[in-house]
């Protein structure tokens, strides 16, 4: 979680994964809550509602929008309460606003921004000549230099990079 230039908490999730967006209002008094609404961006059409006007919040019916459906669930038993999205889709990227209506206290709002990482569809390892490398390569002499090129196809905001190298030296096999 970081803060972006607009002072809004930023969260990141990977397509297919899950994320819990917090409704981290400065006030959370469950007994006095009459309504919780989640909005997307600056549109006024709620994506999630919990109407607690005639029941306790924890017993109130939670109603996601048709588009969100079963992908969204709000957990009001934790602090801060969260809206969990699973599975995350690419189009979930954007601003989210949580609004908490109280009977006797001021209405509270909390803004978050969700960034969605789309993993690459394919990853290929090549040498400097452009030859695709697979399985076991070599052998190389000790002291030789080796340059491997990793190409990723598809994906968005994919800045997670893992390099796993397994090598055999003499008779010893190592993975790092």
């Amino acid at each position, binding site marked *: 979680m970081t803060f972006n230039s607009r002072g809004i908490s930023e969260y990141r999730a990977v397509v297919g994964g899950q994320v819990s967006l917090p409704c981290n209002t400065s006030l959370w008094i469950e007994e006095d809550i009459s309504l919780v*609404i989640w909005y997307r961006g600056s549109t006024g059409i*709620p994506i999630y509602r919990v109407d607690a*006007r005639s029941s306790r919040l924890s017993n109130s019916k939670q*109603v996601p929008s048709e588009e969100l459906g079963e992908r969204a669930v709000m957990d009001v038993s934790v602090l801060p309460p969260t809206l969990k999205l699973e599975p995350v889709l690419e189009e979930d990227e954007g601003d989210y606003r949580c609004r908490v*209506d109280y009977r006797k206290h001021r*209405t509270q709002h909390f803004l978050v921004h969700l960034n969605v990482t789309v993993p690459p569809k394919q990853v290929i390892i090549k040498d400097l000549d452009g030859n695709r490398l697979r399985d076991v390569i070599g052998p190389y002499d000790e002291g030789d230099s080796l340059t491997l090129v990793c190409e990723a196809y598809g994906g968005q905001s994919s800045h997670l990079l893992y390099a796993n190298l397994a090598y055999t030296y003499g008779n010893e096999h190592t993975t790092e």
Partner: protein
Amino acid sequence: MYAFLVSPRRLFSLCASTRVLALRLTRVDVPSSVIMGDPVWLNCSYELENDELYSIKWYNSNGEFYRWVPKDMPPGQKYESRGIHLDLTKSSFGNVFLSMTDLHTDGTYRCEVSAEAPSFQTVKREKELRVYND
């Protein structure tokens, strides 16, 4: 020949089955400038086609200072806020009377209107109010 009376309530539920939500703000009046000390009216008018009103709320940079919720008793409620001298007896719906103004009344004002369940569709608009020393 049959004559039948359609009560307004029944007519509403007939409309509700094919509802088209069309909540919009028709006007949000905040005077752009006020002489310090003078009273001020804020007005927020809306149009709800096939839905009921849930709430009208006024905010400034310190947060919510007034709301009108038809289902509440009383419907109008105010919250203490620096620079806001709100006369609740003169205020109703989106019409708010600030009996006097000071330098802290200066700022950004926002009106937020929400329709009733199940949609709770919401519209809002912001306007600036400047308070000047005479």
